[in-house]
């Protein structure tokens, strides 16, 4: 087995790092895949910026409540123990360090943990930021789920972001289709790599300088736990 992981496999890898009992906010889009991969042996409370704790899975077709949606505006459900609250309280939780883990997508991540995930240089569409900045500055642990490079092969892990920042110095760990990397005081530290990839290959697809842990593990295709 070798080569880049499918995004669902990366989500599965992230799921392994979500602790039992954690309060978790998953960013819009691909990060929501993580919830599908967290094993049933763990009880995780999902937070949504629009005032929900204890979000459950998508409702059965025909059971949707148009008011009960997640941050991505998709219908969700509420688990027993869940609660509703208003937006200002939802962001108090996010900004105030009450969310244990957030998983966010990224256009770029810098070696100092800067995150760029809300805007590119595209001026033809209006800018939109949503709750990304609040989550990025506030969550206790910020995990990034992204491809290692853009579709056209441009590196996303950089010495400095070139796109507008979401927040500076906030990313703790990056999970790509090729590797798991911690953001440390001395830059990116590779913890895991997919099988069949050399360190030189990985560095070649990364604009930032990489360091490698003593015990780099094989990044296994994710599985439902």
């Amino acid at each position, binding site marked *: 087995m070798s080569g880049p992981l499918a995004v669902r496999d990366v989500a599965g890898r992230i799921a392994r790092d979500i602790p039992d009992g954690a309060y978790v906010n998953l960013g819009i889009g691909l990060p929501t895949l993580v919830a599908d991969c967290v094993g049933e042996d763990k009880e995780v409370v999902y937070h949504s*910026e629009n*005032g929900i704790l204890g979000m459950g899975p998508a409702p059965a077709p025909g059971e949707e409540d148009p008011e*009960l949606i997640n941050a991505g505006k998709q219908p969700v459900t509420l688990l027993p123990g869940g609660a509703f609250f208003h*937006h200002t309280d939802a962001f108090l939780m996010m900004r105030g360090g009450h969310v244990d883990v957030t998983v966010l997508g990224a256009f770029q991540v810098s070696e100092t943990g800067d995150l760029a995930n809300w805007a590119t240089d595209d001026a033809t569409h*209006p800018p939109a*930021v949503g709750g990304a900045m609040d989550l990025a500055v*506030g969550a206790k642990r910020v995990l990034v789920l992204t491809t290692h490079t853009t579709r056209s092969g441009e590196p996303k892990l950089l010495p400095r972001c070139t796109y507008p920042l979401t927040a500076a110095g906030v990313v703790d760990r990056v999970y790509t289709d090729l590797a798991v990397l911690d953001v440390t005081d001395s830059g990116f530290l590779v913890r895991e790599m997919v099988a069949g990839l050399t360190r030189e290959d990985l560095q070649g697809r990364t604009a930032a300088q990489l360091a490698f842990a003593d015990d780099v593990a094989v990044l296994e295709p994710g599985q439902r736990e």
Partner: protein
Amino acid sequence: MIDKRVGSLADAVAGIEDGATVLVGGFGASGVPVELVHALLDQGTTDLTVVTNNAGSGETDVAALLRERRVRKIVCSYPRSAGSVWFEERWRAGEVELELVPQGTLSERMRAAAAGLGGFFTPTGADTRLAEGKEVRVIDGRRHVFEEPLPGDVALVRAARADRWGNLVYRTAARNFGPTMAAAAALTVVQVDEFVELGELDPEAIVTPGIFVDRVVRVGTA
């Protein structure tokens, strides 16, 4: 005798003036006071500053205000969605001003207005483009941006039930910006699905106490 119930949508939005800053509740399509916004449209009110999380979608509510050129400025966090065609068209043509605010800051700025505060420092947005031109202060080793209160002349809110004092409860995630906006405006107008008798709402579970509410109108549900 306090009775904040009004008999029609037209009465509910009566007196809202051109040039007003209007806080419009809702997140995506959840909790949007659609009928109140349409009543404002029907009334002809224009030159509005609209504060709302998204910038409307399709042809209803805020999108309709934009289509009909009633909006001078939008203050929001996420004006881009699949159906935000009218916002994009007006924005591209330079016909509507956009003040983009991080979502938590948007909500917190309205709360600061509601609470009579003069502003606050937040780490959100520091080191970003959205802090440009704003005061930055290092507090406890971390960069913070100064944000000003954001009051409304009017708030349009959707709730589930109200009594004649204007006490409100909401339904699931439709609560979203409602309680904060209701508290942050000089005139708060609420559309509800149902009126209940005074005393029927559990005093432990009232989400928006009537002190924040000026008018409530019942809108028939499908």
